[in-house]
């Protein structure tokens, strides 16, 4: 009896195996790597894991006959932790694609590992425009946004509105430096001037000293080249020191909807910011976001979480075509070949340098009186068409472009 059963099982395995021999380990594994516990946890975190799961469910849970599985880990914003997790994932657990990875320094490290192992890297959380520029990789797709797009969205709008002298408060790591560099370029290109910058450590809770230096610089605009908890604290404390009342303007170069939620409209009203996704854009984004919020404690998705959903969706579509996950480069090549189409970002393309192209939006945070309910925070100022939103292909210095 027992022997018969074992033989039966063996038969099933033997018969089943050739059916998806192309899918390594007979399962497609997607690893969501991000900040689960620190200052970017609300922007990415479990919300990104949920978004990846929703993408898998919407794809039917199976691609090319193999089930799709989502795993996740916490990189604690540390490049060494991130790259060793990815090594283990790929070598031991058979992970095929690494998704999200906020914190540019970690993403740059992970990109190297993924390339070396020839897997796929779907970047949503990290912002440095180097990821599709100097540090581009045939194994990466940079989905949601980048520092160039942010600089051109918010930076442009602020300079054109008369804010032609700038002082930066910059988070002292790859992302902050890239954002400061890209925004400075925009300011200068528009005839403005950068009067100075101060680099603060990641996760600084007290910004008073830096704000005082910014105030003393007499710059018209104080550019916040940081994110998450750092931006929140800087905005909150700027109000305390009367910076805006004193005539200077704050430009949050990267602000997420969860940051606004946590600041409250009273403090955040009037801020201009650039995003590639907002839950209340159209019927499709509203429907998806509602489903997302139901499973995420009522919290609406950030653009990073939306990007995780869209990137995974496109990845699975490409896999359905290649029917093999063995060669990461080939899958990414397929992703670039196929036009993208998803409910959150609409129709778009993935460029040769791995940059996903779609429109960006310049929003202004509503005043408390203008907000009709929870999470009704943004008023659209301008849609930035896809052709303008991202750095032109030939300016990033990506080796894949030259040919």
């Amino acid at each position: 009896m027992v022997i018969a059963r074992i033989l039966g099982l063996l038969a099933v395995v033997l018969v089943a195996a050739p059916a998806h021999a192309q899918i390594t380990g007979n399962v497609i594994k997607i690893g969501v790597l991000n900040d689960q516990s620190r200052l970017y946890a609300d922007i990415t975190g479990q919300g990104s894991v949920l978004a990846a799961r929703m993408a898998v469910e919407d794809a039917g849970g199976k691609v090319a006959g193999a089930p799709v599985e989502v795993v996740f880990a916490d990189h604690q914003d540390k490049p060494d932790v991130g790259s060793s997790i990815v090594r283990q994932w790929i070598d031991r657990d058979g992970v095929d694609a690494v998704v999200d990875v906020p914190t540019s320094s970690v993403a740059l490290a992970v990109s190297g590992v993924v390339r070396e192992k020839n897997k796929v890297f779907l970047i949503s959380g990290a912002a440095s425009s180097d990821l599709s520029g100097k540090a581009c990789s045939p194994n990466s797709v940079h989905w949601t946004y980048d520092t160039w797009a942010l600089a051109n969205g918010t930076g442009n709008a602020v300079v054109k509105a008369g804010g032609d002298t700038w002082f930066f408060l910059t988070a002292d790591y790859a992302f902050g430096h890239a954002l400061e560099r890209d925004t400075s370029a925009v300011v200068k290109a528009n005839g403005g001037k950068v009067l100075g910058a101060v680099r603060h450590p990641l996760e600084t809770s007290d910004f008073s000293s830096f704000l005082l230096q910014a105030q003393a610089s007499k710059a018209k605009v104080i550019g916040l080249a940081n994110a998450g908890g750092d931006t929140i604290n800087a905005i909150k404390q700027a109000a305390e020191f009367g910076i805006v009342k004193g005539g200077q303007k704050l430009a949050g170069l990267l602000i997420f909807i969860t940051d606004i939620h946590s600041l409250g409209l009273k403090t955040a009203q009037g801020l201009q910011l650039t995003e590639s996704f907002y839950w209340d854009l159209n019927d499709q984004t509203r429907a998806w976001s509602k489903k997302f919020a139901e499973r995420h404690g009522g919290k609406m998705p950030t653009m990073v979480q939306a990007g995780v959903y869209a990137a995974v969706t496109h990845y699975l579509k490409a896999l359905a075509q290649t029917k093999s996950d063995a060669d990461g480069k080939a899958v990414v090549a397929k992703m670039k070949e196929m036009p993208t189409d998803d409910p959150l970002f609409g129709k778009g393309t993935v460029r040769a340098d791995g940059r996903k192209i779609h429109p960006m939006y310049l929003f202004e945070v509503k005043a408390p009186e203008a907000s009709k309910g929870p999470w009704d925070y943004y008023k659209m100022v301008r849609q930035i068409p896809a052709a303008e939103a991202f750095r032109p292909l030939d300016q990033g210095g990506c080796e894949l472009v030259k040919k």
Partner: protein
Amino acid sequence: MFGIPPQALFGQLLLGLINGAFYAMLSLGLAVIFGLLNIINFAHGAQYMMGAFAAWFLLTHAGLGYWWALILAPLAVGLLGILLERTMLRRLYHLDHLYGLLLTFGLALVIQGLFQNQYGSSGQPYLIPAELQGGRNLGFMVLPNYRAWVVVLSLAVCLATWYVIERTKLGAYLRAATENPTLVRAFGVNVPRMITLTYGFGVGLAALAGVLAAPIYQVSPLMGADLIIVVFAVVVIGGMGSIMGAIVTGFALGLVEGLTKVFYPEASKTVIFVIMAVVLLLKPAGLFGRAS
């Protein structure tokens, strides 16, 4: 000096003093608890965070504003501390310091995890009370009224605590009880109750600092974890258990950190640990500590 106009320098010194006020208040609580109970209270950061959350709860769920929170939050969190002392810490007094450290560290992680699970990491808004909004132009900087209030209040609390412990009869009992509990008990003093109340007081100090911090920083589950390591460095530099040491080094290190933010901002998170290393090399018991 070094290309920094003197006016800006004064501004930075003042800000350093304000940050120092937080360090002083938190390290004072730690020093009281360590000096009198011999417990290295790693839950101090979590208790500071709970103080801030208590203020937020009072505001959003009970409609009680900042001034109520200033009294009620330390009381509530202090009571939780007393419960903790009665049920857990009490069993560890006869063991090595390490056990208390591990227990409180574990508790801090659990508390922080629970709050983060419930409220996320980016925090909850808490506005400066209407009476303290705005600021004064001092010529070299705008001093927010709220920050000035924080310095005044924490200086008052620190000095009052120091006075009670070092200069009153109650303080004398406390200090004697840590040296020789049996003898003090023989004089009819209820030593265990005194220790419980002392722990509750130390925890209350942490919570009070949390309420003071709430309008400046976000009310976030991570706020304690970010601060506790720095505060421990302050306590070590000042000398474990030294009340005056905690207060003076708290303010002094706030100043040093403020100056670092001007001259080399990238190092502002590490400078305190560099000082700690140097002090430990030269004076292992800390600046105000007595070598035992």
